């Protein structure tokens, strides 16, 4: 049984004073997340990631389609008890201390008293708030709130965790900790579904990713699979202060710094580029292949100048 099945979920918002104007935030989306995997949900700002997650959590009602979580519906409290959720830019009751907040959430999740107190204590330690447990949340920094958010999402030991941008607002150390935590969660056999902009995190963590752009799915699969299809690139560096016009025409990037020039171009242009250099009598300093990354794939799918237009759609 898949952990999450998104079956044609779609959302149209009605905006304007009379709600006449329709705005398509998500086109019908088909997506399956297997149990035990870490799944990255990527896309630029406004792609529809948060919208999808909110529908998945039953906070917003879809315009069409359904979703199944652990084979059931999210409207069933028993299913919700198995899911942990961290919203985007979380905000909590700021008159409570971190400990009180977690206690309250533990109560709502139905964790019995004795166990709850132990869990809250352990959880505060785990997210690095052992010291700040008795401080009111109104005195918390953004990153500390994010940590509280993560703590409340995993407090009740859910089978599935859904994080909307778990790394946002965290310092480099914090990001590393969250990465480790997500990996631990996988080790514990949980399914993790998270959205992010930070591609390096996704690349390092995810078993599979999906890329969403303007409400449409642009690609799903393991990172290696996705990047395999992206054309490789090479980096050329030669000495000089200008680039020949013919070389300029085939380069994707060109930088002049001091008395060296650096150009990046597609792998299959390597021969012609070397020919041009030879003809112009320029001295080649280095030629290095550039490893194609998830970022390249991402840019190729959603970038402003889509190199391989139409792929994946």
């Amino acid at each position, binding site marked *: 049984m898949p952990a999450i099945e998104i079956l044609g979920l779609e959302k149209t918002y009605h905006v304007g004073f009379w709600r006449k104007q329709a705005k398509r935030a998500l086109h019908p989306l088909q997506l399956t997340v297997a149990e035990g995997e870490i799944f990255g949900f990527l896309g630029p700002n406004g792609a529809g990631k948060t919208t999808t997650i909110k529908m998945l959590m*039953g906070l917003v009602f879809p315009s069409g389609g359904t*979703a199944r979580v652990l084979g059931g*519906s999210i409207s069933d409290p028993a299913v919700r008890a198995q899911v942990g959720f961290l919203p985007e830019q979380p905000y909590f009751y700021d008159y409570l201390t971190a400990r009180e907040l977690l206690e309250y959430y533990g109560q709502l999740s139905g964790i019995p008293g004795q166990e709850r107190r132990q869990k809250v204590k352990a959880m505060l330690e785990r997210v690095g708030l052992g010291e700040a447990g008795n401080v009111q949340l109104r005195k918390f920094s953004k990153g500390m709130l994010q940590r509280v958010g993560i703590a409340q999402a995993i407090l009740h030991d859910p089978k599935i965790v859904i994080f909307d941008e778990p790394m946002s607002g965290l310092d480099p150390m914090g990001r590393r900790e969250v990465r480790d935590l997500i990996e631990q969660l996988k080790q514990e056999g949980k399914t993790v579904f998270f959205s992010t902009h930070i591609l390096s995190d996704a690349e390092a963590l995810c078993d599979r990713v999906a890329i969403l752009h303007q409400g449409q799915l642009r690609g799903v699969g393991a990172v290696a699979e996705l990047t395999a299809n992206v054309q490789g690139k090479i980096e050329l560096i030669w000495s000089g202060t200008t680039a020949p016009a013919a070389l300029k025409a085939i380069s994707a990037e060109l930088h002049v710094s001091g008395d060296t020039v650096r150009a990046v171009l597609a792998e299959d242009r390597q021969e012609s580029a070397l020919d041009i250099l030879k003809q112009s009598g320029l001295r080649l300093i280095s030629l290095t292949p550039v490893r194609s990354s998830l970022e390249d794939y991402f840019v190729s799918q959603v970038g402003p100048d889509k190199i391989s237009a139409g792929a994946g759609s």
Partner: protein
Amino acid sequence: MKASGKVTIVAGLLLLGSLAGSVVLLRKIDRMRSHASLEEVLYISSPKALKRLSLGYDGLLADIYWTRAVQYFGATHSQGSEHYELLAPLLEITTTLDPHLLVAYEYGANFMAAKRPNGAGQPEEAAKLVERGIESNPHEWRLYYNLGFIYYMELKDYPKAAAAFSQGSQVSNAHPFLKVLAAQMAQHAGDAEMARMLWTTTYESTQDHMIRANALAHLRALRVDQDITAMEERIEMYQKRTGKLPESFADLIQSGLLPGVPLDPLGHAYKLMDDGRVEVRTPDDLPFIEKGKPLGYVPPKVPKFLPSD
């Protein structure tokens, strides 16, 4: 993913059920409190203080008290109660809050002054109320008219009535009739014709439907009394001529004493009785009549003059 159907049904049923329940209870509470809420006006010893307390919203508060007064009078009237002790304080509060609410004075002149069961039977208080109205609104001929009306109809103080009418006739825009009323008061005080003129003026000049209905009922009664007086004269003439009473109106018509079967103001034919008296067919619908009532007629407790009756 959708709103839970069970919750919707339960909440929907609860909503409808409690809506119905609240209406039932409101009716019970209202019945219990019909006058309880009004009795608090008895605690308002100083309407002037109330005006100060209304924080400048005295116009609105006056309107509220005005509706309360009308409601109170209407409800008490249709219950057949003869006690209107709250009418005077309600009108006093109303006119203190808004001294320019003319209809309130007019209402007082018509219903506070009138005898029971048609009114509160407090003509002196009514006259005072209207006099205060004149102080605040010296250019309203209607108030002088109302004052004269109370003096004439209820207090039978004809000189004072004449004085009020002539004062009113000097106000600009005054109804030209006021001058006539003032002039005729000396000679014709107590005449049916005089009363008719007054009720007609009331009927034509008022905006209030209850006052108008009341005036109409009085005008009808005056006509019935006049009709019957006239008919009784003819019957007497017939008897003198033939030595017997007419058996029907047809006898009178044949002998040329009547042009046709006479109809009362409601359009019903009068009844000629065996003993030569004339009666109306629907005495309940013609309150205030002096003549034409069946023998031993007991009027309903509440005179029927309201338009809804």
